[in-house]
């Protein structure tokens, strides 16, 4: 007797799990299939070396939608977000810029570089707060189709238009600017001192293959501000147990609603009968059947790998092939014998419990981007460091530490050689760069794990190692994500849906695509 489910979700990343949990919560019999031996996708904690727990890929959380935490009772299922309150930007000249939840202290530190910037800082924070609030609405809706002429879609469009017309004029223009400007130009409207401009504009390039001077990156900046709205600066946080703690909490919630999760179960293809999805075939040949199939994989795999492209409209296939999914980032995870010491701020203290951003100026990041444009990794990369064991001591043995370093740029496509040949050189570059700021770093490294975009692709299956399952560029957002006309989580194949970061509203640990896809699926089932 073949197994039969109401829904099969492909991939147990955080979006797949959120999707499964919502479907199970609505009473569906759900099966989640994960290729790896662990759940979580890129939202995973793994003990790579005994006693050292690495937040292997994603490392901070801020964007997880509050309604998901509430609906799925994630707190009850063990989700604990520890605050990540500060950003420390060490500078090459031995100075530093330190910003934390204490606004006055941050202002004072900024004023050392520019009193004008200190004055503008509050205005900037408020502006971003309002803008994030305005855009938050968009994160919670299914994108309408502007080319559709039927009344339902037009009504949705009108509703969105009305929402934006509620903004006062100044806010509306600021939003228009955020949607179109480069992060460098955007922050330069407020600030003049390089350390502040560099570190602020860096948020605009994360996960993109663009530099801070590329238009459109201001939106990514805003995307990273969304987290700061509900609990103010508290909202950038670190999940207890690493980001894997988030996946586990969602998995427990899904399990409590009756969903089943199977690991080591790679899906080879979606089984179709008369143009509708009826189940999946595993790589081992097993077939599992269900009323509907949801893919949380990136659009390339969802459309070009899991199903036969001949069954899809040609324009969709073209659009997905064009979909910009260039990987640009790498990750270096370190097991450390002792606490790392910063040259600009020696000693152990709360300053090591926040983010440490190697982004001393806009030009520094832009030059890092220049290297990568022609197929090399940055000689002096932008690095976003956190030391999880400073926040959650359970992450490493007593007295030892783990360090998570997110690195940009590491282009998936190298001009010369392969990533296998260049992996260690890339790791060395990152360590050399960090050692300028952490003088004792080289002496305390016990183990290092270097993840190139190729490794990210091979380990978690993200095509080209793109952490957002597709760049958050203007032409790949909202009703254009992942392809025009297919932004409503459905596909041209009946009963086959998408729910990954490649759909609206995009990447980061938001859970929003998973949730919105579930809502759309449930709405359609009711019909």
């Amino acid at each position, binding site marked *: 007797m073949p197994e039969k489910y109401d829904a099969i979700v492909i991939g147990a990343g955080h979006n797949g799990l959120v999707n499964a949990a919502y479907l199970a919560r609505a009473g569906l019999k759900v099966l989640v299939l994960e290729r790896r031996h662990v759940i979580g996708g890129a939202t995973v904690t793994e003990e790579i070396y005994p006693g050292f727990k690495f937040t292997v890929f994603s490392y901070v959380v801020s964007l997880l939608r509050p309604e998901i935490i509430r609906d799925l009772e994630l707190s009850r299922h063990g989700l604990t977000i520890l605050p990540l309150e500060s950003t420390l930007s060490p500078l090459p000249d031995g100075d530093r810029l330190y910003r934390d939840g204490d606004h006055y202290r941050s202002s004072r530190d900024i004023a050392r570089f520019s009193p004008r910037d200190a004055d503008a800082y509050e205005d900037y924070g408020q502006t971003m707060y309002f803008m994030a609030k305005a855009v938050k609405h968009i994160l919670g809706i299914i994108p309408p189709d502007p080319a559709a002429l039927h009344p339902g879609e037009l009504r949705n469009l009108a509703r969105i238009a009305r929402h934006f017309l509620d903004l*006062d004029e100044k806010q509306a223009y600021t939003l228009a600017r955020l949607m*179109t400007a480069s992060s460098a130009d955007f922050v330069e409207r407020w600030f003049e001192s390089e350390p502040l401009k560099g570190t602020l504009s860096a948020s605009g390039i994360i996960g993109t293959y663009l530099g801070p001077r590329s*238009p459109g990156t201001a939106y990514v900046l805003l995307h990273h501000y969304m987290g700061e709205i509900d609990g103010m600066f508290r909202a950038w946080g670190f999940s207890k147990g690493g980001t894997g703690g988030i996946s586990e909490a969602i998995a427990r919630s899904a399990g409590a609603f009756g969903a089943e999760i199977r690991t080591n179960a790679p899906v080879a293809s979606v089984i179709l009968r008369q143009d509708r999805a009826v189940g999946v075939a595993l790589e081992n040949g097993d077939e599992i059947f269900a009323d509907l199939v949801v893919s949380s994989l990136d659009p390339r795999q969802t459309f070009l790998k899991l199903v036969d492209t001949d069954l899809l409209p040609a324009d969709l296939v073209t659009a997905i092939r*064009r979909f910009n999914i260039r990987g640009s980032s790498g990750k270096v995870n370190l097991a450390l014998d002792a606490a790392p010491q910063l040259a600009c701020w020696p000693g152990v203290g709360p300053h090591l419990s926040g983010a440490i951003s190697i982004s001393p100026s806009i030009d520094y990041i832009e030059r890092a981007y220049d290297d990568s444009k022609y197929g090399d990794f940055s000689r002096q990369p932008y690095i976003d460091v956190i030391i999880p064991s400073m926040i959650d001591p359970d992450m490493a043995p007593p007295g030892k530490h783990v360090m998570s370093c997110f690195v940009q740029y590491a282009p998936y496509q190298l001009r010369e050689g392969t990533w296998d040949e260049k992996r260690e050189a890339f790791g060395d570059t990152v360590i050399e760069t960090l050692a300028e700021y952490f003088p004792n770093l080289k002496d305390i490294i016990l183990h290092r794990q270097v993840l190139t975009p190729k490794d990210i692709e091979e380990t978690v299956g993200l095509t080209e190692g793109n952490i957002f399952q597709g760049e958050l560029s203007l*032409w790949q957002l909202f009703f254009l994500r992942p392809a025009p006309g297919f932004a409503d989580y459905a596909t041209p194949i009946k009963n086959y849906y998408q729910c990954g970061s490649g759909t609206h509203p995009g990447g980061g640990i938001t859970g929003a695509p998973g949730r919105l896809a579930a809502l759309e699926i449930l709405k359609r089932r009711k019909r």
Partner: protein
Amino acid sequence: MTGRPFSARYDVILIGAGHNGLVTAGYLGKAGYRVLVLEAREILGGAATTEEIFPGFRADTGSFDAGGFLPQVVAELSLRKHGLRFVETPVVAFAPQPDGRALTLWREPGKSLAEIEQFSREDAEKFPQFQSQVQRMTEALRRMMTLTPPPLSSYHARDLLPWLRAAVDVRRMGRQGLMDFLRVLPMPVADFLDEWFENPVYKGILGSLGVRGTMAGPRSPGTALLFLYGVQGAAAKQSRSSRFVRGGMLQLAEALARAAHEHGVEIRTGCRISQVCTHAGRATGVLLDNGEEILARVVVSNASPRHTFLDLVGPEQLEVRFVREVNNIRYRGSLARVILALDALPHFRAAASREVLTKEGTLLSGHTVLCPGLDYLERAYDAAKYGQISEHPVLDLSIPTMLDASFAPPGKHLMLINVQYAPYHLAEGDWDVEKGRLGRRVIDLLDEYAPGLQNLVLHQEVLSPVDLERRFGLPEGCIYHGQMALDQLLVMRPVPGYSQYRTPIQGLYLCGAGTHPGGGVTGAPGHNAAREILHDLRLRSHPV
């Protein structure tokens, strides 16, 4: 009696006789208003003019291609009757390559297709489809160019209806067409071209259009829009414009001036304005630097937003927030002009080595583009980001004497070269010194493609971005009166809230390239400004 000063001799004073100013003047004169145009220089046309640059050589010192000029302006102001003629060249663009090969785009699409085929059969196959997509999109864009962008908070039917009508037209492109249009506009031109073509040579010719005069590289988002904006001046089935004004750019200004004269418009040259006079928040006229004050009901400025508001009106007359917005307009000029007087026609290796049907000169009749690929272009931009002049610049040149020998003494030739990138803000050094180096670099580069060219140079003139600023009043040498980047277009141009050619000073309007839709020799800002000014003048014409 409303606020209108009793002694006003003119209905309208227009500051600046650039092509946009003259277009506005023409329309206002035609509507029966008394218009006075004041131009600081002795010559008309602003940055679209022709000057005797060396003895016996007359050159278009500013723009030299007028492909984008709106046909409706030509018709409505009867410019043909006033002597305006365009010259369309058989070759649109000739792109010699470092290896001695060349790609030529001809006015005849069939011939271009054959050329592209030499480089890539696959690209040639996609060429017709690409052309038709680009044409659909530029048509939509052209529609939008003559509309007035509504303020973001507007509910007024007068503001919104024309856009709705345009939207319906764009929707007629079909679902896919509309989606493509929305998708492509914010893209980098490199990504857009990569979607279609594989060969770097063709992409180089097209890509250079997407960054012309702007501080952006082909990988910068928004350059696909600039590319389409550049292409919209091209004739049907062309991917570039190559249309010159017979007799030089000045003849466009002269034709516009004659049309304006016919409607009673007065034009005074050599009149430098020191101030826009205001009274109680309303423009009353202008003050010349010789102390003369001229009154008018309405003042229209063809000058840049920076010069208009910060120099002529004065920040003290304006709200702090508005001044801050004006200060924040990004100009960042990135283009220099080199003008060479040549003893004879240069011989491009790539032209000589090819068995062309016609004589060699034909290839040089349109634009000659030295941009062998998108990476080359991007690298040229990399330098400029950090305030350096490109080591390997991109050149877009024209030899006007190919079309009209009267530009130079018999047998001599003239070469106009746009050079990118030449950033206005240099990290080190001074433009007055660096321009000599730039000139040499350009000649050296040309000499590689056309051996012996350096020995043909009789005279040379380099207009650095600083020179362009001094000569034409282009702030920071920006040919567009404000970068044409996504965040400085449409409702954001020139500054948020003032996209309708009106300003915070009542009775003061803008009509230059700093307003929608932007720069280039299109006449569109002038045309649109005239519509808005006429609307206001008519509302206020009776209550005296």
